[in-house]
């Protein structure tokens, strides 16, 4: 006789409409999300605008982001150059659109790799407990003592600059931060009777972890991943601004604020303003969306 234990519990993500119905299909979910979380929806729209701009930069951008035009240096915003040009005559709008690609590549990769590594460590640490948990927690404590940007700087100082190294540098400090939160949710799940039941039925570790533990920490996990994307984009911008991140000629928002932006700040303020605005709006959108996601996934917070 086999007994199937449903791998669900109260913490599984739920999005319900006004009448308490669960929406079906992508459009149904989207429509309900927009009605229930209008502020989060604004965030999602912002993220989608920049995300799509990054993906389709080749088609949307009016100019080549790396081609100099010395006849049109530090030009103010006009019909020809909507956001003006920089000190080398490059079109700012095009550079910002291509910069979105760099930001999202670094942001998403770091958040996903860091998040999933953290998920594995966090769940394993909570599930197996004992000495492994103790040691892992000590190690995580140590890594967590390094502020994100400091750890990233240390990694960059060793492996050098460039987009791959920046991703590594930002991913490493994100791992313990995710593991810590996942572990605390997973610890609560481990004590739930159905995990005991699954163990009593002789299910293997892999099955219990994959079917019973992981789905139940998905809520907080998704919220962290979202926050990570924003943090990673900010960290990449900071590193690139310091000249220790993405290198020319790759268009990156932080890089656009380096050098020229400060020098030309008073005569051509658009060079300094627009790339920063792009960073701010993107991360702002991600944060709004993340807050809405947390409200949906964590019913306890819904009243706040």
């Amino acid at each position, binding site marked *: 006789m086999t007994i199937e234990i449903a791998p669900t519990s109260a913490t599984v993500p739920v999005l319900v409409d006004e009448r308490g119905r669960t929406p079906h299909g992508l459009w149904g979910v989207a429509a309900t999300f927009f009605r229930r979380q209008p502020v989060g929806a604004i965030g999602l729209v912002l993220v989608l605008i920049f995300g799509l701009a990054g993906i389709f930069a080749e088609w949307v951008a009016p100019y080549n982001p790396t081609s100099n035009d010395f006849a049109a240096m530090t030009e103010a915003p006009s019909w020809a150059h909507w956001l003006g040009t920089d000190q080398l005559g490059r079109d700012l709008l095009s550079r910002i659109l291509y910069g979105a690609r760099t930001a999202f590549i670094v942001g998403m990769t770091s958040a996903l790799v860091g998040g999933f590594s953290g998920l594995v460590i966090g769940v394993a640490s909570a599930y197996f407990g004992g000495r492994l948990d103790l040691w892992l927690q000590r190690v995580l404590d140590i890594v967590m003592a390094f*502020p994100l*940007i400091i750890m990233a700087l240390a990694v960059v100082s060793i492996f050098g600059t460039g987009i791959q190294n920046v991703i590594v540098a930002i991913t490493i400090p994100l791992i313990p931060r995710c593991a810590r939160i996942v572990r605390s949710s997973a610890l609560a799940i481990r004590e739930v009777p159905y995990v005991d039941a699954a163990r009593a039925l002789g299910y293997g570790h892999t099955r219990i972890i994959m079917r019973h533990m992981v789905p139940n920490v998905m809520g907080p996990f998704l919220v962290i991943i979202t926050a990570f994307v924003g943090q990673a984009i*900010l960290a990449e911008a*900071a590193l690139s601004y310091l000249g220790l991140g993405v290198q020319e000629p790759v268009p990156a928002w932080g890089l656009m604020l380096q050098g020229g*932006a400060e020098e030309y700040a008073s005569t051509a*303020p658009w060079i300094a303003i627009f790339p920063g605005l792009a*960073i701010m709006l*993107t991360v702002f959108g991600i944060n709004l969306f993340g807050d809405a996601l947390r409200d949906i996934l964590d019913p306890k917070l819904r009243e*706040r």
Partner: protein
Amino acid sequence: MYRYIISRILLVFPTLIGAAALVFLLMRLVPGDICLVRLGSGGTSFTQASLATCHAEIGIDRPWILQFLDFLWGLARLDFGKSMWSGKPVIVEIATRFPISLEVAVMATVIAVVIAIPLGTISALKQNTWVDLLVRTFSIAGLATPAFWLGIVSILIVLDVTQAVFGHPWMPPIDYVPLWQDPIRNLSIVMLPALTIGYRYAAVSMRMTRSAMLEVLREDYIRTARAKGLIRRLIINRHALKNALLPVVTVIGIEFAFLIGGLVVTEQVFNLNGIGRLMVLSVQNQDYTLTQALVMVVVTIAVLSNLVVDLLYAWLDPRIRLA
């Protein structure tokens, strides 16, 4: 109580030693020979003998474990070796730049607390009104704004405003003078960076104050106080705020360590000669001795501020020290 304090203080050492081990390992991952980088970067030719001298000087020719113990012993005596770039002792390089960074950090903390606690409280009391929405937008924007960009924009604004008001643009001076020598000059240097960093810091603390306050306001003892007929201000100040501030203290303490991270970028924008800028220079110059020392300094500050938070927490909340 004492038991808790002592065990908590003792916990600092394994963390610091672990962090030192991590820094030590990271710096040994540097591809290639540090001495080759060091000798080669001067642009002069070098001999096998000078390479060997360099190896012996850094102690790189000895077993790893001995090198690590040396490193630890050096840390304990605050002897971080010599900067590979300037040749001066690292501790001197750091000590000359530390006061300005500390001043900016402390000032940013003060700004953050002064902004965050009242705004967070008001936001919670006026939950779901336009005031609340405004405060929340202000705080989410604070989390999204890159500090260096805020710095650039604030310099831009100062330039434009002074141009319009005085007829000539004014920039904050960059050569640091201590507060007690020339308070006005000192503040004009430190104010903008502190505000720039303080904004993000305030945003985090504001969110925490708001959610902690909301939680406390739902507690039974608040209802009791209200039923007793206590006046509103007394309930908020004495009963609610006092308890809501516990998690806020935690956030302020933890963020203080991460403030140093913010300094790295902000000092660059404002041309402040603090430890954040020194860190960037050391990475750019591949000055590994300086980098590892600075990372250790920052980590120590982080670990110690965590310790202070925990002890403060135990003092404020009897449930912890008695548990």
